[in-house]
């Protein structure tokens, strides 16, 4: 399973544990759709995304739009460096509106 | 000369032919105590000896070039070419006789003949002209057109066209 439900300090969240690329896009879409249909509020950790490309970004954007459309709350958390780079490159940080916290080890 | 024959209109050519056949004027000059002559029709002008610029790697009889109103004209030392094979000593009387040549190889070229002194204009009728003697190396003597008898003395009439045949020059240069 490339998406794991986790619990940390009492908070529930999903963790993407695989690459988020064209190779995994179809599978990711299916898995995320399943999760989203069941939950009204969701946090997804991007900490363990091993690789991300344009196809992956599309998934995130669409997931975000879908949640909004359905009136659900979706937040991406724990962006790792690679994800941040891509979001910055495409100027998408504001689109998601999620606070981005740089991992401590970056400093 | 020219004045003589102009004005005769249509008969001009004919007259000219006749005239030349009967009497021809020649310019005589002395070169190393010999008297030489050229057909006066070939002579353009006679000038004083000016500075002659040496041309390297040329047969000796070419003394060099002079500046004739801006053109470089080669000068032949007739003494070296025809007479004794000694270079002419320049004196007050030395002159350059400028002639137009039409060498067999084609083209028209002015050349200067360096002579010790210009003598006079003479007339030879065809009775007093004899063909050049066929002795020795005719190739080297092809500049002799004929021999003219003047006061019982023979003078060399020069064939100016052959004085500077480029073939001759070439062969001379190659020998050098």
């Amino acid at each position, binding site marked *: 399973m490339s998406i794991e439900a986790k619990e940390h300090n009492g908070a529930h969240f999903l963790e993407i544990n695989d690459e988020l690329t064209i190779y995994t896009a179809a599978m990711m879409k299916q898995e995320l759709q399943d999760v989203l249909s069941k939950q009204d509020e969701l946090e997804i950790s991007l900490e363990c995304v091993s690789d991300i490309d344009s196809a992956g970004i*599309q998934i995130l*954007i669409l997931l975000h739009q879908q949640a909004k*459309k359905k009136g659900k709350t979706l937040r991406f958390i724990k962006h790792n460096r690679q994800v941040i780079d891509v979001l910055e490159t495409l100027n998408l940080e*504001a689109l998601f*509106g999620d606070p981005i916290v740089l991992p401590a080890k970056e400093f | 000369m020219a004045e003589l024959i102009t004005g005769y209109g249509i008969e001009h050519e004919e007259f000219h032919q006749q005239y030349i056949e009967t009497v021809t004027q020649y310019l005589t000059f002395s070169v190393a105590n010999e008297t030489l002559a050229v057909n006066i029709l070939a002579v353009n002008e006679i000038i004083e000896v000016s500075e002659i*610029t040496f041309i390297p790697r040329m047969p000796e009889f070419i003394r060099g*070039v002079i*500046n004739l109103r801006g053109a470089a004209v080669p000068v032949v030392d007739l003494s070296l070419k025809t007479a004794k094979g000694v270079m002419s000593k320049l004196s007050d009387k030395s002159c350059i006789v400028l002639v137009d040549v039409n060498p067999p190889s084609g083209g028209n*070229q002015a050349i200067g003949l360096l002579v010790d002194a210009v003598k006079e204009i003479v007339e030879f009728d065809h009775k007093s002209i004899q063909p050049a003697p066929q002795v020795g190396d005719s190739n080297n003597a092809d500049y002799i057109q004929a021999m003219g008898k003047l006061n019982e003395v023979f003078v060399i009439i020069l064939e100016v066209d052959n004085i500077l045949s480029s073939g001759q020059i070439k062969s001379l240069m190659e020998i050098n």
Partner: protein
Amino acid sequence: MLDDTKKIFIQESEELLEQMENALLEMEQVPNDAEHLNSVFRAIHTIKGAAGIFGFDAIVAFTHPVESVMDNVRNGLRSVDPDLIALLLKCKDHTANLVEFISGEQEDISETLQEAGKKLLNELTPEQPSELTVTNTNEKIEVSDKRSPSEDHWVISLDFKPDALRNGLDPLSFINYLKRMGEIIEIITFTHDFPCWEDMDPESCYLSFRIALSSSANKEEIKSVFEFALDDCELRIVPPHSELEKYLALLEELTGEELNKLGELLIQVGALTEQELNSALQLQNGVLNDGTTKEIKPLGEILVEQHVVSKDVVEKAVAKQEIIREKIAQETQYIRVDANRLGQLINLVGELVISNAAVKLLVEKHDLADVQEVVSGVEGLVENIRDHALQLRMVQIGETFSRFRRVVRDVSKDLNKDVELVITGGEAELDKTVVEKINDPLTHLVRNSLDHGFETPDERVAQGKPRKGVLRLNALHDSGHIVIQIADDGAGLDTDKIRKKAEEKGLINVGQELSQREILRLIFEPGLTTKDTASNISGRGVGMDVVKRNIDALRGTIEVDSERGKGTLVTIHLPLTLAIIEGFMVGVEQERFVIPLSMVEECVEMNTDEWHLDKNSHYVNLRGQVMPYIKLSEFFGVNYQQSHRGRESLVIVKAGRAKAGIVVDRLFGELQTVIKPLGKVFQGLKGVSGATVLGSGEIALILDVQGLIGLASAKTTDVKTLESV
């Protein structure tokens, strides 16, 4: 600004503004809903970004404070109340007005609109001193009037087609690569065109970007970034204003001699890429083939419609075309002058130069100080007249070059080869008499190159070369000479074959040690002429000796460089004129000789002791350089007495690449040299190329530098090394 960028911006802004309005209306019900706040923020943020990219500074100026306010609201720094929502709705309306405004033709924002904007911003940020806000806004608007730096970006719109991802492209990597071209000032990723989640194919690409790039690269270079993506995306590159200005300036500067097509002009200044031209031309033809419409649209119109080139640039190019056309028409009004008359004029000028020298000499001789001034004045005038007179006979070599277009086309067609002729330096001028004489050798060289130099297209492809060969004709001026280069990217010369042939013909000894260049030089040997052109390449020697002889007759030099498989370069050096040159006079014994000044490299004192002069081999070691030399007195000297006891000088002369020293007794210095032919009698004379008349009336000989170097080198050949340079 281009219409299409406007359209894109307007359409997108309208959608965003609608979203904003909806969100604001929702907020009236649920004031602190984060999603709606975000939605409003995103809308205004995206509009601001897009406005920045497209250079609509008035909109940036207005939306920026609004965005700041929304950011504060989002971060809980400012609370939402009905007043704020009302105000934000007004801001939204104002933004819509601004957007609507830019769709019009007017350049400047109207007063009322400006005032309304200021008022709204004042209300929006009351805590700021109102004055400050006003000046702030004013500044920004002013900037926009002056064309702000934000307009100075390349605007790239990049819309990927659905199959892009499946075709192995990652749009992200192109954007990362684009960063190498310059700084990405702003990038907008369009997301509102995304399908709904259910319809989304995760392997299809829905991404579109608008990018503002600050870069010094040109259009072609930027385009090259997306080279591999061109089939899978719609790419539009809109140049920044500065670039537009550059195009306009370049168009202004163009001094076209021939009437170029519009497309060619635009490519020349970089406003259009070749590919863009081709697709526009296809479109033009496509309309024609349809039969639906008979009217063929002018290319310029198509280009503007397709938003490839801005209207300003097209108009300018069309205007330029007109100017060139007029110029060509004017040229036909030139007075045709009999070449002989020009020749006479130049001869007379030559005489004038000589007479002037004579006058100068006399003035110096008699020490006439008061006349001297006048004479030097006259001298200046004479030099001017000389230059102008020579200029009359100067023609550009471009015309001669252009004739080869046809030759290249026809010959390469006959040979089934694909060769493109590239001409450069066509504006270089030289004497008409030289041009006339250079035509034959050039034709020979070009034909040779086409015949033996270039491979067939298939062979080229097999060798990894482009199918199409390139033949270059280039001309440039170099210290009193014109240099003509004929370069091909063909097979190059086979030195082994040349060597073999030369050995067969007995031109060189079997196994003789020769440098690459010496071997190449053998192709100019008469003996190497071969008729077996059937054998692939070596037959190139056909008539090269004739070419060399022609060039020699013009007192020029010819050299050949070649690399196997890479191509061949033939370089010809020619004097600019055959009439009057700058000369350098030297003396040997009583005689004077003139060396063309352009061929004199330097003069040094002959230092026989220190140079370890090798009298037999005739070369000196000049600062570590092996320099063959020729002693003029020995070479020319028939009966010179060894009277001259002074120091001798070594004049280093060069012809093309070859150099040699000429040993002379005296150096006299520079002088105007009117070249006089020496006449047929002296045709075979070696070491002398002509004569000139000095001020004194004497004649001085002009040395044949090329010939002398050859002779000097030949003497040294025994010692093996003669390679100069």
